[in-house]
């Protein structure tokens, strides 16, 4: 039982990060109908900015702010300079441009900062608090969980309570009608990318201290897992991303703990098939499943 609790806590803390990252993917999907394969590389780039600022100013919080700001700018830049000009003849072209961006970003980071690991300090203690003899969550894990929760609530408020959020949703779901109603659809698209990249930047800052450290490939694995989480939850649903992220985090923790570290890719596939064969649009798909 102790082992189960221990693995549950571990799964929750990693799952929270996957949730944040999956959320970023969902935001772009909702805004632009694109799975942003460059999300991981963009988040790493902003994390480099964040940690450079943090070490220059001596404050993690200034660094975090800088990373999120860099995320906003990078997201807007990628949309304005690149994605906007990708032909829509074929939806895969955007995926390929994103993959090209991954290579470019990782290579440039390697050239500028070197391919080595850089230490990434956590703003809180990473030693776990014990709960009835079981190593449970550390203060840092609590911060991660709290930060993700706050972002989810803020995004929910933004989309349901503010005019700009409503305009973004309208632009994404019915661009033609929105345009007729005077919504600047193209600006909403840029805003969607910026917002998603900012959430991605936050996720990057949260995940880096828990892994091997900051390096150009720091998010490669995280991206794959977060994509899985987003798909499991349903790409249209922010709530689905959070549930999917936590679910994937828990399952990976249990599988690693009980079956060994090698079996996780198999477990991920089984989870995906189990969910998608029953609900082809993910757990939280609102639209009717397509029948074939």
């Amino acid at each position: 039982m102790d082992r189960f609790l221990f693995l549950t806590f571990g799964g929750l803390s990693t799952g929270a990060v996957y949730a944040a990252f999956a959320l970023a993917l969902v935001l772009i999907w909702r805004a632009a109908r694109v799975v942003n394969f460059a999300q991981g590389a963009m988040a790493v780039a902003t994390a480099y900015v964040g940690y450079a600022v943090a070490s220059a100013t001596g404050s993690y919080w200034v660094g975090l702010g800088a990373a999120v700001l860099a995320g906003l700018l990078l997201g807007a830049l990628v949309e304005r300079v690149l994605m906007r000009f990708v032909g829509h003849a074929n939806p895969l072209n955007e995926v390929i441009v994103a993959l090209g961006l991954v290579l470019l970003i990782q290579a440039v980071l390697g050239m500028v900062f070197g391919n080595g690991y850089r230490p990434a300090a956590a703003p809180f203690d990473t030693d776990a608090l014990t709960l009835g003899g079981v190593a449970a969550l550390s203060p840092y894990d609590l911060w991660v969980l709290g930060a993700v929760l706050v972002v989810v609530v803020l995004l929910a408020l933004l989309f349901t309570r503010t005019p700009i959020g409503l305009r973004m949703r309208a632009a994404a779901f019915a661009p033609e009608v929105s345009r007729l109603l005077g919504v600047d659809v193209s600006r909403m698209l840029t805003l969607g990318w910026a917002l998603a990249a900012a959430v991605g930047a936050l996720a990057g800052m949260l995940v880096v201290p828990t892994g091997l450290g900051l390096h150009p490939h720091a998010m490669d694995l995280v991206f794959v897992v977060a994509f899985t989480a987003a798909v499991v939850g349903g790409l249209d649903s922010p709530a689905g991303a959070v549930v999917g992220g936590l679910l994937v985090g828990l399952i990976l923790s249990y599988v690693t703990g009980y079956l060994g570290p090698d079996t996780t890719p198999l477990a991920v596939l089984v989870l995906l098939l189990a969910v998608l064969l029953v609900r082809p649009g993910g757990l939280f798909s609102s639209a009717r499943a397509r029948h074939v």
Partner: protein
Amino acid sequence: MTATRPSARSGVDRPAGPSPLRRLLPGAPAAAGPRGSTLLRHLAGAVLAGTLVVLLTNQLAPYQNLQVARVCAFLCVTAGYTVLVGLNGQLSLGHGALMATGAYTVALVQRAFDERGVQGRWILPLSLLAALAATALAGLVIGLAAARLRGPYLAGVTLAVATLVPAISTIFTGVFNGEQGLRFPAETPPAVLGAYFQPERWLAWIALLAALLTVLLLANLVRSRFGRSLRAVRDDEVAARLAGIHVARTQVLAFVVSAGCAGLGGGVYAVLTATVAPGKFPLELSLFLLMAIVIGGLGSLAGAVWGAVLLVALQDLPSLLTETFSLPSGLAQRLEGNLALAVFGLILIVVMLAAPGGLHGAARTLVARLRTRRRAPEH
């Protein structure tokens, strides 16, 4: 489930000719009349291309011949892949893992004979056929699941498949020998060709033959009624169904054909070095395959050729760049490797922005512009 038996068999039979597959196609096969000439045209093209490449291999040094061989091995994969993604509209990100399936099948079959002391020229084609069959079967399983899924959801499942190779090879270490992989007897040129015949040239010929057969078969397939069904399903599933096309069966068959080609390509790829290892089939390979077919020109076999060339160029770009520029050591170290990746990333972005139809699309537009008076080529 009705599709299971026949389509698995079709994978085995395929190299003998496309006819067994066509017999199973949705609807009755079209009359042989006009198709016959298409076949002859393709055949002539294949013989011509094959002859040219063979003549070329005689002029090349060993390493260049290996490059030709790798292009041919990748061509088997990209040709089948572009049919699935480009013509049928199903996005798979797991073709690297399908290549691995073929590669491991070749290794296991060849080792099984080797351990029993059985030798013979027929083992190579047999092992490649087994690779094709085993991978087509894997494709059937994935295809059955895929037929229910669309767009990013299918991408998610196949992406998970792409990450499986290291896990499977470690879990079943007894069979696959973990991360070290398997080695099997290297393919050597027959004695008839002379004692000093370049072994790499022989490898290039094997790969060339596999690629020509694959492309020939696919070229006929896409011009057939099945090819039209593939496109119809891609363009509008509802309309296709109304037109009497069995959508799910078409999709599953497309996956089987595409997987078979990937298995053959993976098998040939393994034969070139007589090794397999999980590290040779990472997630990046699957993503690079996708880039190759899109940059080459999605849905066209000529684009698949471009893509295969690009994949080999990508593998060789780093060493080329390292040698071309001799830089001061501090800077050189940062650029080494990274520069090649940056260049490739830029190429991807620029090609996609400048030529949304890929290299083949760009070439076609160029040709069309050069002879504006002629009507636009095909379809």
